[in-house]
């Protein structure tokens, strides 16, 4: 297989919300263009009209709105069939946790339409869900903070008695707040249950250094790439606004242990806390590339590019070398566009 095979691919990408809680789409696109060249055609798949990536025409050739995950797989498939008629997609890389279930479910139909994916299974997706993480840790020998699943507000008191403050109060899919008092915990519980439903999760708070690991599993128990990153600047939403690649065999071993335990297929991220005694706790496992994924390309292991090649049947060997001390610093930028663009995507669902 030659590099030319990939030079003119048409790739659908979700997660264009490059805001203060960014989706990974723009970083994935940037890595793909760095690895495969500017001959590729990027089709943005958006949910809302204000996702900045829709308007970043130097990165995204055209964007189509797609139905929310709650609309179900039939609506998604119908929309993607239409998009495919226009664009002849070669591949889709979904980048949101909440849409993965549907994309996995329709992956066989997409394949029949000539659209490839490289995704984990539903079983793999489920075992790392926040509500299952504690059991997963016990089963496979990972340090995972103790947690309690909360379906009613009165269960908070028992969680506080069991785990004590401070507590991490987490939404079923996204968002988390540190609670130091019962008032804060109650407020977070109501906010998160209203947004994401039940259960809300109360998790033991681990103090330490926050580290994320971006990795690419081959689906056979191994990793093709592992890049650990220490968060250097963290936003009030807990997101890394700056970070640096680091080198620690224990972190590589942790990712390899995860891949071996799950046979993970595709990109994923381990959110890790290292405590003062050098213990590594897995706080979350995200079933897709993280928003800082371009750093993997900058450090010498272009994970999105490699995922594309694996989707086309290549079986690359593990990449072991990367640049340690490669730093990213995110920034904000006022992108100015004509109102006509906004009208076009809002009214027609295409831009």
């Amino acid at each position, binding site marked *: 297989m030659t590099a030319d095979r990939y030079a003119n691919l048409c790739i659908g990408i979700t997660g264009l919300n490059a805001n203060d809680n960014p989706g990974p789409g723009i970083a994935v696109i940037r890595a793909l263009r760095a690895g495969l060249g500017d001959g590729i055609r990027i089709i943005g798949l958006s949910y809302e009209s204000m996702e900045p990536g829709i308007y970043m025409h130097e990165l995204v050739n055209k964007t189509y709105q797609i139905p929310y995950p709650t609309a179900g797989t039939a609506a998604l498939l119908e929309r993607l069939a239409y998009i495919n008629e226009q664009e002849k997609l070669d591949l889709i890389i979904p980048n949101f946790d909440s849409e993965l279930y549907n994309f996995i479910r329709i992956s066989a139909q997409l394949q029949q339409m000539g659209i490839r994916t490289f995704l984990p299974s539903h079983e793999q997706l489920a075992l790392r869900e926040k509500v299952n993480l504690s059991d997963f840790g016990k089963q496979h020998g990972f340090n995972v903070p103790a947690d309690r699943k909360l379906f009613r507000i009165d269960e908070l008191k028992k969680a506080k008695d069991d785990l004590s403050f401070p507590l991490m109060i987490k939404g079923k899919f996204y968002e988390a707040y540190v609670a130091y008092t019962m008032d804060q915990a109650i407020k977070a519980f109501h906010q998160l249950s209203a947004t994401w439903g039940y259960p809300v999760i109360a998790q033991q708070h681990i103090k330490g250094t926050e580290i994320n690991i971006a990795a690419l599993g081959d689906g056979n128990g191994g990793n093709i790439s592992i890049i650990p990153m*220490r968060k250097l600047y963290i936003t009030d939403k807990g997101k890394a606004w700056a970070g640096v690649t680091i080198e620690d065999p224990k972190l590589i071993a942790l990712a390899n242990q995860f891949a071996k335990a799950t046979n993970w297929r595709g990109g994923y991220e381990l959110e890790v806390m290292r405590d003062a005694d050098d213990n590594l706790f897995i706080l979350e496992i995200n079933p897709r590339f993280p928003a800082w994924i371009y750093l993997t390309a900058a450090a010498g292991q272009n994970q999105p590019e490699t995922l594309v090649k694996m989707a086309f049947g290549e079986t690359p060997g593990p990449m072991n070398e990367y640049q340690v001390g490669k730093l990213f610093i995110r920034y904000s930028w006022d992108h100015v566009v004509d109102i006509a663009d906004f009208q076009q995507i809002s009214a027609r669902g295409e831009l």
Partner: protein
Amino acid sequence: MKIKKNIATSENGFIFNPATGDSFSGNAIATDIIGAMKNGDSEAVIKQSILDKYEVTPEQLNRDWDDWIIQLKEANLLEFE
């Protein structure tokens, strides 16, 4: 006591621990001492070099050295044999 082998230092006093991502700024003498420790120079050799170069008594240097080692330990820059 030795500085961890993988600690990166630069001439301008920047110290980076690639295992943790921690970074520190050191002054000129800190840079010199870390450089000497990375070279494998013994404590006695480094101390003698400081005594030769700076106006400091051996007693004061020993006290400062103990403080220095504590700082290196806290910064997780030392390797224990």
